């Protein structure tokens, strides 16, 4: 009798369903994340001559002036990008959460617009507008005899990156601000605090978790980003050094891989430091009352100032898009503030060819995003609701993808899957387009996972228990109660994954094996390699922005409609 009870109990403790799901996910992560990355970083620890384990390569790294300079440059650029991105995001977040401001919709769209443009295309456009002989500086020099070094050296990287990545801070910070109990602010006012002091001492610290999450993400993305510094010809940063090393200098020179390891370690460090900064500060109380901060109406002068700030930021944020659009209609644009003349012919050129790119992009990005939300939901559920031993590790490993630069993943895939022939055709597995989808899915999994986890955290356990109590099986409960309630978060995760996967280049460029399988970002890159191709390339870029923008907007509409139908109006 006792033995029977025991078996039953142990069965109940480890259900087969979650265990199977966990094993499948673990296998996926192992195969498409851990193995390829280990393949790459392995070389960093190999002696060049004997193949034995060594740390001498790391000693070389730290003894080398160029690498150390690159390291500090990367650090400086990342830190400054966080500063500039914060300067862009803070006023916007502050305005939307503290005031009754009609421009709020505008600001919300500001939060997504930069993300749907491939950053390397943005860099081209920014160079045309803000470069030494770009529109702004030519005009300034003509009228005032001055020029501003927006794009000189590291400045250019900081400028382009902070405009591209500031939405990460804006989105996270706004969400955090909205969750603050109004009483937190009122009690401070009651004790004599107001205005900016109130924001600095109470409101901002309470929004710290969101800010730190966004800022660390910006730091990591900038630290790892390859395309922007390369396009701006800034080579003495870590990611470009790794890429240059791996893709050209001495085929098996270990330094490229050493730099990859350094990149991964730094990203993990940044994540760890941000976790540490939040440790011991339990912000659970923040959400007790909820309801957001009190908003007040602005005085006329304040309103003017607010619109001026928003418009300035809007212009900055839209600058890459404006530049790209101008370029796509330009005949010749050379050493002049604006193009010599305008034409539609570039659109005609790309119209016929872009179909394949667009179909591929939509296919890859939506498959990758779908994979992300399925795995993200599963991991979130396993971590939060199951009692499987070691379940936390699924989360850790999936999140670690954030710290793996796209180039490293691309090279890892080539190394891991090239010698594996596909069934029937015998072609290398790494040439199969689905591999590209897996790479994109792995790269964007962290975004979707966080969105799904947050969504599941808001679904009370008792709702699930109620369903089970009424006789639903676990699987039915998940599909009929949990997933529908999570759908807002799941779709948000889908949108982020989709939009960012659609413009990804760094992993893509390593893995595209034939033109017919190439996505938009690759097509853009190819077009941008010739004098005659810049116009059509820009036109293709405009297509890319419009399509990804539309996709994002549509999913957003679907989310909102779904939410309204279920009466979760908030």
């Amino acid at each position, binding site marked *: 009798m006792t033995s029977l009870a025991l078996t039953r109990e142990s069965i109940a403790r480890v259900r087969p369903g979650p265990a199977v799901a966990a094993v499948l996910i673990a296998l996926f992560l192992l195969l498409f994340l851990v193995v390829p990355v280990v393949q790459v970083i392995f070389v960093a620890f190999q002696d060049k*001559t*004997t193949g034995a384990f060594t740390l001498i390569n790391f000693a070389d790294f730290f003894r080398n002036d160029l690498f150390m300079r690159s390291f500090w440059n990367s650090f400086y650029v990342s830190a400054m990008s966080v500063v500039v991105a914060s300067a862009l995001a803070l006023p916007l977040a502050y305005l939307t959460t503290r005031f009754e401001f009609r421009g709020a919709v505008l600001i919300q769209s500001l939060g997504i617009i930069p993300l749907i443009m491939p950053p390397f295309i943005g860099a081209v456009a920014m160079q045309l507008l803000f470069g030494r*002989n770009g529109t702004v500086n030519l005009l300034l020099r003509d009228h005032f005899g001055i020029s501003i070094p927006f794009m000189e050296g590291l400045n250019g990287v900081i400028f382009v990156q902070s405009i591209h990545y500031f939405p990460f801070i804006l989105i996270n910070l706004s969400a955090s601000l909205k969750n603050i109990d109004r009483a937190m602010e009122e009690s401070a006012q009651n004790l004599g605090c107001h205005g900016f002091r109130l924001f600095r001492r109470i409101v901002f610290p309470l929004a710290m978790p969101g800010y730190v999450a966004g800022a660390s993400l910006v730091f990591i993305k900038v630290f790892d980003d390859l395309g922007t510094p390369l396009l701006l010809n800034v*080579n003495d940063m870590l990611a470009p050094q790794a890429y240059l090393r791996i893709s050209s200098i001495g085929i098996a020179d270990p330094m490229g891989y050493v730099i990859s390891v350094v990149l991964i370690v730094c990203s993990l460090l940044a994540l760890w430091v941000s976790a540490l900064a939040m440790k011991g500060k339990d912000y659970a109380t923040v959400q007790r009352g909820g309801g957001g901060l009190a908003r007040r109406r602005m005085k006329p002068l304040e309103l003017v100032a607010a619109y001026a700030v928003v418009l300035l930021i809007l212009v900055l944020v839209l600058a890459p898009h404006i530049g790209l659009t101008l370029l796509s209609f330009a005949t*010749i644009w050379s050493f002049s503030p604006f193009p010599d003349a305008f034409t539609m012919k570039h659109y005609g050129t790309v119209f016929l060819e872009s179909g394949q790119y667009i179909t591929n992009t939509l296919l890859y990005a939506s498959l990758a995003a779908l994979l992300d939300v399925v795995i993200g939901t599963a991991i979130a559920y396993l971590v939060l609701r199951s009692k499987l031993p070691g379940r936390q590790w699924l989360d850790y490993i999936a999140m670690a993808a954030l710290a793996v630069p796209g180039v490293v993943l691309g090279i890892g895939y080539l190394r891991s899957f090239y010698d594996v022939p596909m069934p029937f055709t015998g072609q290398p597995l790494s040439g199969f387009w689905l591999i590209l989808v897996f790479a994109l899915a792995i790269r964007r999994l962290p975004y979707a996972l966080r969105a799904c986890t947050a969504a599941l955290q808001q679904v009370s356990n008792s709702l699930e228990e109620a369903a089970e109590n009424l006789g639903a099986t676990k699987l039915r409960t998940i599909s009929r109660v949990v997933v529908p309630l999570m759908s807002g978060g799941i779709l948000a995760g889908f949108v982020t994954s989709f939009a960012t996967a659609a413009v990804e280049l760094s992993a893509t460029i390593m893995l595209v094996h034939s*033109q017919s399988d190439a996505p938009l970002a690759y097509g853009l890159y190819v077009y941008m390699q*010739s004098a005659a191709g810049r116009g059509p390339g820009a036109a293709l870029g405009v297509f890319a922005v419009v399509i990804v923008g539309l996709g994002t907007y549509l999913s957003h509409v679907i989310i909102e409609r779904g939410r309204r139908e279920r009466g979760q109006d908030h």
Partner: protein
Amino acid sequence: MSRTLHGVAAALAVLLASSTAAFAQDPSGKLVVVTSFPKDLTSAFQQAFQKAYPKVTLEVLNRNTNAGVKYLQETASNNGTDLFWASAPDAFEVLKGANLLQAYKPKVEGIPEKVGAYPINDPEGMYAGFAASGYGIMWNSRYMKANELPAPKEWSDLAKPVYYDHVAISAPSRSGTTHLTIETILQGEGWEKGWRTNKEIAGNYRTITERSFGVPDGVNSGSFGIGIVIDFFALSSQASGFPVEFVYPTVTTIVPANIGIVKNAPNKAAAETFVDFILSPQGQEVLLQPAIRRLPVNPATYAKAPADYPNPFKDTSLGSQVNFDVEVSQARYNVVDALFDQLITFQLDGLKAATRAIHQADAALAKKPNDKGKALLAEARDLVAVMPVTAQEAADPQLAGAFTVERKSATDAVPERQAQVEQKWAAFAKDNYAAARKKAEEALALAR
């Protein structure tokens, strides 16, 4: 149900029969080409080729030259590429050395042995030249006018103080074509003098781009005024309407751009057809298109070219000054790249500071001559020019060994690790540039 199945089987049989029949007469199937050429060139050839051979599906894979070589090496174990198609002969030498190409003798007649001083085809037939290109100087005329700069003619012109911060080049380690430019100057002027010229020009660099196209792109948009580029970049930009001009300096090499069949090519028959096609009159004419503008290797094609089209088979001054030695180039390929990166690319700030000081001292001394100052200035110039390795050392396989990892057995000795060598050179350059700047500043002080 079974009738449908029968139908499908019959259709399949017909399809199979027809495709095997076609294979017997005409090449067909997928042809995979790895290339560093821009879309304008590849898609023009693609269209022309597909028109002539509709049964072949041409798959073009765009990689820069070095990445393309790397790609072929990494994928050699399970090769899926038929052709490698790129400019730099050196890249083909690397592939040939690694035994990754297979010989083919094109069937096309009438192509000469040499263009300029350079042999068009690989003597062993591993790769064939299909278009010639020369290296030169390109500039944006609006930029030059706005900055009141004179048009340059020779490499040495670019070293003049007036061009300070106006010139751009792509890193030779990233661009096969730039590597050839640098190597041409080294072979034309000799190792020591050649590097001196290279570094004096480099002192005027505004930027060193990561991609070959970064240079014409910057000149076209006016980000910088002058670029050191391969001719077709300039010619095609001009043809696209950009306000740019181009000149071949006396010391230049007309070098063929090449195509080679990859070893174990999956579709060898189609690959051979493609090679013959691009050498045929039909293929050679594609090179004259405004967006491409390369020099055909078939002299007959020039009859159809515009009047001012450069013709290396007629204009003997083009590219005949330097007898380009592929073997010398090959022996020190990696060393030259690494030297350029360590002495110039990654020390550009120090080099520019020294150059600026030298220019200022030079100008001051011209107004107020001073022998001691002149001596100091000469010392400063020598400090900039001095090289950490001699021509002999650069060609030494021992040194080159640091840059390749042909580790045939665990006991093979590699004298130094690449990172170590590089650090040594970088420190050498950094110290010398700082010292040169100090000397030049002293000279300037004397001229005040």
